Each structure stands twice: as structure tokens, then as C-alpha cells.
């Protein structure tokens, strides 16, 4: 495999697009024709070859462009990456997890050589080579969490565990679905999830917390979340909402296929060995409606999900104002035929 990374943008001229291969491996999040909250966690074990589940951390054709976009976001707003002082050890844990996983799963792109605590990291796609001393912050250009998450797709948060609760106390958050790390940092599990409607009353967060407190090292889990985004904008932050909010009012039947994106988060949870913290990578995948409808099963199913979704959820996810337009567009691709169970495309 060669270095096949797209030259593309997630802002201004928005040249992002998915190749046919990327469309086929897109993590379509709906395993049935309707949607409601659930804890929906499953073991994060290696999945089908070629799928986004094949490796611990998926590296795809958008890698280099996404890392460039992250650097732009951070230059504009350094508060997107924060770590409370006691979270540095968890940052090292995360660095180790990512470096070891990538070097193991993508040896042609990444190499990690260890001689005791003297480590040598090579990242070919980003043309980075770094010799440093593991657990010695002075040997890296920035903190360990920031260092490694500038080289890893998706957002990352680190949760400290104490008092039978999880506390969000570090994070790299530049591709978020409209939540603010700067505001939420330091909150407990129920506090940072407080704005989510319905799920609290359903007991979703009580069950999820109970489950996560017992998460074991070496047994990561995963789940999906999703929302809708106009234009392939990774940085849908509340901070920048006045900049991207107006685009929601510019969708038309003619441009919706190209500009409306389904935004899927593949969320994984990993217990970290030294700090006992939990790492929470939130990997964002975007797909244009016009790309998604090339998979007939997904087109039929997304039409039904969007058409029948609880308006309160559509409001929270921020697409109620465009829902009718979406349904109208997607209905062209739904002949009413039954869909097969599960999320994989039909062969």
C-alpha cells in the first residue's frame, strides 16, 4: 500500500470527499430502520478486514488532511487542547497506546523503537521523527497527550476515575459535535452529559457509568453516535457556532445531496494501565448524502430513520429545521423494499 492520502480541505472551499473505497467502508451507524438512544456498547475487537474496525485506531485516506485541519483549529484557539495538571500520566498512557497500536497495525507508515525508556517514533505520513524519553515531558515539544493527538484522527478525552465517578479532565477536541471542552473540563460523567435530552430519564447514563467504572485494561469497548453537518466541517464547535450556524439556512433541494453530511462518531473506550484513567477517542467520519445514497440499503434506511425520528432528538442534534428537506431528498432512493439486518452494505 502506498501513501494514499487525500489533499483536501474541511473549511473554506471544502474539497473533502470520500473515494468509492471510503464510501464502502463508511461506518453506517444504523442497524435497523429506526433510532433511539441506547448504551449500545460492544467489545472493540478487530473487525472485518478493510473495515474501520479492522484496527485499534483506524487510519484512512483523510489522515493527513485532518491533522492539518487540527493544527489550524489549535492555532486559532489553543483552549481546544487542555489537560489538568494531574492528567499528565494519563497522557503518557494514551501516547503509548496510540504509538504501539499504529506501529503494530500500520508498520509501513509508523515505527516505534524502544530501548528502555528511550523511544524513537517515526510517522511517515506526517514526516515526523522524534526521539524522546518516555515519561519525561521535557523531551517532547509539548505535553504527551497533545503530542500524540496532533498525529491521531478524532477527538480524545481522558477521564480520571475517583469517588465512583468519571471526571473529564483532559482532552484534544477539534472535531466535536457542538460541545465545549473548555466549558466541560472538570465535570463528572452526569454533568458533562447533562444537556442530552431523554437519555437521563431512560437511565442510559446511569447504566453506562456503571459499566465504564468496571472497564478493564486490554478490553476496550466501542459504540456509535451520529448527527448531521452541513458542509464537511470538522470543527462544529459551539465556540464557532456563529460562523457555521448560518450554513444550515442555505440548504436547497438542489444542493442538499452535495452539502448535507451524515456525521458518525466511532467512540471507543480504553482503560489506561498506569493512571487507571479512561481514554475516550471520538473518531468523526463524514459522508455526503450523495455519496451515501450510492449504497441502496443505507439510502432506504437513512430515509426511514430521519423521517421517523423523535423531533426532540432532531432538535438536540440540530437538524430539525432541515429534516423535511432531507426526507424529501432521501425519499427518492427509498422504494419501500425491506432492508437486511445490521449495518453492513449488501454485497
Amino acid at each position, binding site marked *: 500500500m502506498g501513501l494514499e492520502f487525500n489533499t483536501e480541505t474541511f473549511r473554506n472551499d471544502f474539497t473533502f470527499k470520500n473515494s468509492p473505497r471510503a464510501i464502502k467502508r463508511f461506518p453506517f451507524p444504523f442497524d435497523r430502520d429506526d433510532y433511539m438512544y441506547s448504551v449500545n456498547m460492544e467489545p472493540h475487537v478487530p473487525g472485518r478486514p478493510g473495515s474501520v474496525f479492522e484496527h485499534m485506531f483506524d487510519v484512512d485516506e483523510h489522515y493527513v488532511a485532518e491533522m492539518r485541519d487540527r493544527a489550524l483549529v489549535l492555532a486559532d484557539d489553543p483552549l481546544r487542547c487542555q489537560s489538568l495538571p494531574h492528567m499528565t500520566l494519563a497522557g503518557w498512557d494514551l501516547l503509548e497506546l496510540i504509538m504501539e497500536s499504529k506501529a503494530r497495525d500500520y508498520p509501513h507508515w509508523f515505527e516505534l523503537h524502544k530501548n528502555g525508556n528511550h523511544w524513537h517514533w517515526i510517522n511517515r505520513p506526517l514526516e515526523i521523527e522524534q526521539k524522546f524519553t518516555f515519561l519525561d515531558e521535557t523531551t517532547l515539544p509539548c505535553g504527551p497527550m497533545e503530542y500524540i493527538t496532533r498525529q491521531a484522527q478524532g477527538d480524545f478525552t481522558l477521564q480520571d476515575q475517583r469517588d465512583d465517578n468519571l471526571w473529564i479532565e483532559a482532552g484534544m477536541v477539534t472535531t466535536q459535535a457542538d460541545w*465545549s471542552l473548555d*466549558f466541560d473540563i472538570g*465535570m463528572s460523567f*452526569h454533568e458533562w452529559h447533562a*444537556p442530552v435530552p431523554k437519555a437521563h430519564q431512560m437511565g442510559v447514563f446511569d447504566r453506562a457509568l456503571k459499566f465504564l467504572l468496571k472497564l478493564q485494561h486490554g478490553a476496550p469497548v466501542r459504540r456509535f453516535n451520529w448527527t448531521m453537518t452541513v458542509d464537511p466541517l470538522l470543527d462544529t464547535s459551539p465556540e464557532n*457556532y456563529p460562523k457555521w*450556524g448560518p450554513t444550515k439556512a442555505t440548504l436547497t433541494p438542489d444542493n442538499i445531496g452535495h452539502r448535507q453530511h451524515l456525521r458518525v462518531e466511532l467512540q471507543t473506550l480504553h482503560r489506561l494501565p498506569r493512571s487507571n484513567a479512561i481514554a475516550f477517542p471520538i473518531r468523526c467520519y463524514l459522508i455526503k448524502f450523495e455519496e451515501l445514497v450510492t449504497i441502496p440499503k443505507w439510502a432506504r434506511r437513512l430515509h426511514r430513520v430521519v423521517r421517523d425520528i423523535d423531533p426532540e432528538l432532531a432538535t438536540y442534534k440540530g437538524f430539525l429545521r432541515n429534516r423535511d428537506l432531507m426526507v424529501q431528498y432521501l425519499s427518492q432512493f427509498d422504494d419501500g423494499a425491506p432492508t437486511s439486518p445490521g449495518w453492513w452494505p449488501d454485497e
Partner: protein
Amino acid sequence: MTKTFFEPSIRSRPVYGELTPRAGRAHLFVADGEGAEAVCDMIAKAGADAPALLARSHIIYMPGPFGSDLTARLQALGAAQFHRSPSFGAAQSRLRKVLADAHMGLQVYLAGTETLIGLAMREVMEAGLPPEAVQTEHRGSLSRRVQCVHCKGITENVTTDPFACSHCGLNLFVRDHYSRRIAAFQGVNIDAEDPGQVPAAVERFK
């Protein structure tokens, strides 16, 4: 002013109790405005123990955001130390010193507006006191301290929703989402999607 009733809300929104006398080696009260009444009510509840409790008490008091000032009533309790401050900001260094000097067994009582309770609670937590040593009671104005999520500026004493950020001028709606670290509610631009379409301000936090 009687105890405040709060509508049920989301889990990040703080809830407050009712001050109750507790055994302790020392007692620190921080109150503003009508919070003085909560302190007086608590001392009354202490009954025969009140003189001993007051002999180990330090009261820091400041007027409420809209001027209510019950200094005379609070001072008349006869606490070992009573300090009237013109504002929370002016009292901050004193509060930090008292917390830094605190020994095990200090009981903390915060009473008054959410802003006062939130700001004082932040100092108490940063000083490393155990949460179970702190009691809170809301009295007085419901006005809010709100952080603009866009420019990060904090607007004090917000009574209407929406309101204009005192720093960047954006029209913000006030969420119940609350950060203890910032001691503020979150304000989000209300007309981001449809610039200029700002609903009339309603007095929600009197």
C-alpha cells in the same frame, strides 16, 4: 425572602440545601444579600449551642448584586470574626487566606445568590476541602453569572434571556448547563443560524 424554589433541571445545574448547624472546630460563613437571613435562621436553629458556635465563627458578608444589605443584622449575631466586604472580588484574598489556614474540622456555610455560592465554592474546592464539609443555601436574586461560549467573556448578574454579551455583544440564550470550574452558566448565540432574528428578552432570573 423565603427559601428559593427551583424548577427541575438538568444534572449539571447545581442544587442547594438548607444550612444546618454542625459540630466543628471552626465555622466559616460566606454570604451575600439575603443570604444573611439563611445564616441567621441557622444560628437560631442551633439554640443553646449558638453562643459556642458563634465563638468559633468567621463571617464574610457582602451586599447582594442589586444592593440588598443586611450587615447590621448579621453583625449583631456576635461572631468571633465578622467582615463586611463591598464585593466578592474584594473578599477573595481574605477568603483564600482563611481557607489556606484552615484545619481539619472546618465547617463551611455558603448562602445567598448562585453567583456567590459558585464563586465561593470554587475557592473552597481549590483549597482541597472535602465536599461534605460544605453546605449551601440559596437566597435572594436568581440572576446568573454567564460565560459566553464564543468569546469566553463572563457577564455578571444576567436577569434576562436572551441578553447581549457584555464583551463581544452577541445575543446569547442562557442554558442551564453549568461549570463549577468557571462558576458560570453557558451562554450561546441565539441568532447564529438566522442573524438578526433575536426574540424579545424575557426576565427569567429575577
